């Protein structure tokens, strides 16, 4: 029997999460105490995030590669990179949140609650054990539910209710699948489980368990046909929460799927799982794009388009077949960064033009170019990236993904995937450019010109994302090279 010990050095390895934990405690107390301006709490949360970001960067630079808690938590370059991406995204979301008028019952919680949710996401990235995974996942989900439900309008609660029920069911499925795997192996650690699984004996059972796990994670990612909640929940949340859902939660779930597939599923049933994912991705690509065509409610639109991007993010995983190589990881990370940039930017744009008390609608962009020409230009950059047009991060992301898909997966499957991606891209022009049309071709709508306030945080987020997108579009090689170098040894080993 080994005793569970948690040394200080272990805490250092978990530094980003620890900082977040500490931060959330301090901020909650401060919120109780001060009851002062809500913005200061928000800024405090931002500082906490920056601290965690710094910690993650330091870990990355130091090439920390260690496990704690008997391997339940692993900090390596890839997870550090993922955490950095998530943290950056969360910073953006917080920036949007600070720039958005309060529509919730809460005062400080609307900032502090992001932190535990983010913590869940980060733990998910590092987790190598099912219990940890489950707890992290639920931490993420429940915090998000609270964030959604805090909205004053009833639709917020409705959305929260839907997420609770469907999220609960999906968790149940996940756990049910896990329980069978546990039953076959007697362990909850990924690696041990992978080594103990015996496909000869309980093939069907294990396969069913695998499918359940994949499907329940697909619910979190909102792949078709498990996507329907995402539309309603996205539309029911306030803008920053919707951004969080669409960026951080989704990315975390995708990373989880990636991890689980690589560590547990692929060694035993790569072909089956890849087939399942292939079907899901194909269906998602088609349905999401077509579905988005008619959406004019912005949050709903971005919830749907997020599905398509998520499907795209899974392509490198599918393409690799058995064990993703460095390319797949790098490309995935590149597109994840692009995804964060463009989606956070898009939500910042929504928040900036949004009139409090209404559902964000495409019409809110009407005539923006007359009111705020430079904002309009930034939004155009974001839209270009979303639609995958040059010169933007999204363009190269798509290019890399397609290159990878076609070079890794020869034959029809690769071509089908590629064809679906490009067809989807065309359809996406139609709905993304609706925003552009509104901005440039419509006269100013009912929104008074003053509604674009100088919300510096949201503005900064918008500009940061827009410039980041363009910069990545101009010099994509730089980031690719960097990412490849950073994760090379992690993946190869």
């Amino acid at each position, binding site marked *: 029997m080994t005793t569970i010990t948690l040394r200080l050095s272990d805490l250092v390895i978990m530094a980003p999460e620890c900082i977040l934990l500490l931060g959330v405690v301090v901020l909650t107390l401060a919120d109780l105490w001060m009851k002062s301006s809500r913005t200061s709490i928000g800024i405090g949360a931002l500082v906490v995030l920056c601290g965690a970001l710094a910690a993650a960067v330091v870990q990355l630079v130091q090439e920390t590669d260690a496990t704690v808690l008997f391997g339940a938590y692993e900090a390596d370059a890839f997870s550090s990179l993922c955490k950095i991406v998530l943290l950056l995204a969360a910073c953006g979301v917080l920036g949007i949140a600070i720039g958005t008028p309060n529509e919730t019952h809460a005062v400080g919680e609307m900032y502090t609650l992001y932190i535990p949710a983010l913590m869940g996401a980060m733990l998910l990235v590092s987790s190598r054990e099912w219990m940890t995974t489950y707890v992290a996942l639920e931490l993420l989900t429940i915090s998000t539910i609270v964030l959604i439900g805090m909205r004053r309008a009833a639709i917020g609660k409705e959305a929260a209710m839907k997420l609770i029920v469907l999220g609960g069911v999906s968790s149940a499925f996940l756990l049910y699948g896990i329980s069978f795997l546990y039953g076959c192996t007697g362990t909850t650690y990924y690696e041990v489980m992978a080594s103990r699984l015996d496909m000869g004996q309980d093939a069907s059972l294990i396969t069913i368990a695998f499918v359940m796990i994949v499907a329940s994670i697909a*619910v979190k990612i909102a792949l078709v046909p498990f996507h329907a909640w995402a539309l309603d929940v996205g539309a029911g949340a306030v803008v920053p929460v919707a951004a969080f859902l669409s960026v951080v939660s989704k990315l975390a779930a995708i990373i989880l799927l990636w991890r689980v597939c690589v560590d547990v599923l692929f060694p035993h049933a790569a072909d089956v799982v890849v087939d399942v994912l292939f079907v899901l991705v194909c269906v998602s690509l088609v349905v999401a794009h077509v579905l988005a065509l008619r959406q004019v409610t912005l949050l709903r639109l971005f919830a749907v388009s997020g599905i398509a991007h998520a499907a795209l993010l899974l392509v490198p995983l599918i393409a690799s077949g058995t064990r993703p190589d460095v390319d797949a990881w790098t490309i995935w990370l590149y597109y994840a960064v692009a995804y964060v940039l463009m989606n956070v930017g898009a939500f910042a744009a929504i928040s900036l033009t949004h009139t409090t008390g209404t559902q964000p609608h495409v019409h809110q962009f009407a005539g923006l170019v007359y009111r705020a020409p430079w904002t309009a230009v930034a939004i155009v950059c974001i839209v270009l990236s979303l639609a995958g047009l040059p010169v933007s991060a999204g363009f190269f992301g798509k290019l890399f993904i397609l290159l990878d898909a076609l070079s890794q997966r020869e034959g029809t499957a690769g071509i089908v995937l590629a064809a679906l991606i490009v067809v989807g891209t065309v359809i996406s022009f139609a709905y993304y450019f609706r925003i552009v049309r509104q901005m440039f071709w419509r006269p100013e709508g009912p929104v008074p010109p003053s509604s674009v306030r100088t919300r510096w945080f949201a503005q900064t987020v918008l500009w940061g994302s827009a410039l980041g997108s363009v910069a990545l579009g101009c010099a994509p090689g730089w980031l690719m090279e960097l990412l490849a170098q950073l994760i090379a040894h992690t993946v190869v080993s």
Partner: protein
Amino acid sequence: MDFVASAWMVPMLSLLAFGVVIMIGERGKAWTPIGSTIVSGVAAIFACCVWVQQWQERSSYTWAEWRWLTMGDWPVQFGYEVQSLTACMLVIVTMIGALVQLYALSYMRDDGRKTTFFAYISLFTCSMCGLVLSPNLLQLFIFWELVGLCSFLLIGFWFTKPAAREAARKAFLLTRIGDVGLLIGLFVLYHAMPNNSLALIDVHNAVQNGVIPEHTVTLVALLLFFGAMGKSGQVPLHTWLPDAMEGPTPISALIHAATMVAAGVFLVSRTYDVFLASSTALLIVAIIGAVTAVLGAVAALVQRDLKRILAYSTVSQLGLMMCTLGMGTQAALIAALLHLLTHACFKALLFLAAGRVIHTVHQQDIEELGGVRNVLPWTTGAFAIGALALAGMVPLSGFWSKEALFAVLLQGGAVWVTTALCVSALTAMYMTRAFVRVFLGTLRQKNVRASRDIPMGVPLGALAVGAIAIGWPPMFARLGAQLGEGYPHTPAWLVATSLGVVVMGIAVAAYVVRPRVIVASTRARQPSRKKVVPQRRFSGTGARVASILRVAVWDWVYRNGVVRPFQAFSRGMAQLDQTLVRACTEGIGTCTVLIGKLASRAHVGQLHVYGIWSLWGIVALLCFVLWKKV
């Protein structure tokens, strides 16, 4: 000075005139027309020098060094070639061009776009000279089209008149149809030629050496002739030529009588080797020429418009030339060219005289004209000379050239010469009719005063002299000899017959068409034009036949057989494109949006529905996996 070697100066002078005149524009309308006329006069004199020198030296000169284009590995060299035929044509073109410009100084005096007119004429002269001098069929084609352009521009010169617009359009399109044939002919030739050369000398050699297969030669010959048909108004592509009379009369004289319309004959002559190598092509040329000659003459007989009579006469004469060329001998070539030469002279004379009448009386309907003799005695004389020359009266130039034609046709066969004699009789008849109607009788228009107009008079005089003098037998024979070997000799009986036919034609026409003498006081009571029922001598069945023969038949056929069906077809196609094709291509997008709408509608917002979807999703995945496993 070596005039032959510097023959390029001739078109260049005209081009220069064109450039300068068009650049200066209306600002220089006081002097640019005069300048342009002087330049063209210089060009004409230069051309004469070229001709004379060429005549004396009896040599041809070719310069083709200017690489215009490189097709494949073969450079297309442009340049100019002076030989007897081209030198002769050069003189005709520049001479008549200069005279017409001189004439136009007066004729167009009050026109607002006078300078444009002169610029166009200069451009035309330049293009025509370029055409004539071309050593290369491609170059020839380029100038061929350019003269067509000038013709189009000048027919539509009075562009505010709808009739002029339609005439211009028709002229362009019908000649264009011919040109396309010519173009295809060039493709065929290009591919058939051993080194892809379109130089005339190479074509000559290739055909002579029999390098090109027989059927290809026939094809090329026919296609070349098709081009010539368009330009030279051969049936059925001739209908543009009468309509082209909407243009100013000097233009009708220059382009639509003397020079451009003769380009078809020139083309056939220039590529005569190709035709000689194919008897089929020759036969077709002869048949179409004969048909055109007869139809044109008949149509001229029934026209009311003075200029249209002349236009149909041109059609008829060109048909005669073509028919002669179809005989396929060296003599035929010479005869046709001689007739081309004399025809240019007297037809230009006739047009200019007619123009003088129109300019003075402002009327060109011969039923409304009469007694112009009293106002314009000199013009009457000039017209008479022209008409007699055209009819083929004995001392005049037309007689000699026609005799040559008859001789050649006789060699070809009795049917041809008979046809030609018929045409000759008809020619005499319609010219007599026109002359009697216009110049004899009583003048109906009042307040008609003819001023003494030197710019108009000089060309008339010069051309009248030409129409008489060219036919001076020794000179004429030498001319023929210069053009080539084998000047035809006409048997005496044929000369007699042809003269008899002409005299008979004149007599019949003079008997039937009496000059109309009207007492001025009765005319004064009926000033309105519509009450004057034109009195036709060809009445009853004759009138009906006349109206059919007026060859408006062709217009009817074109309108109902080609234009209208094509318009309907094109409208139908356009409609189809706007509806069906658009629906098929853009329908994909619409369908996608529709599917999106349906899919979006399916998201009813209810937990249970979403849950059931997810459940079915899992079930489906499980089935899929298990199926895969099995």
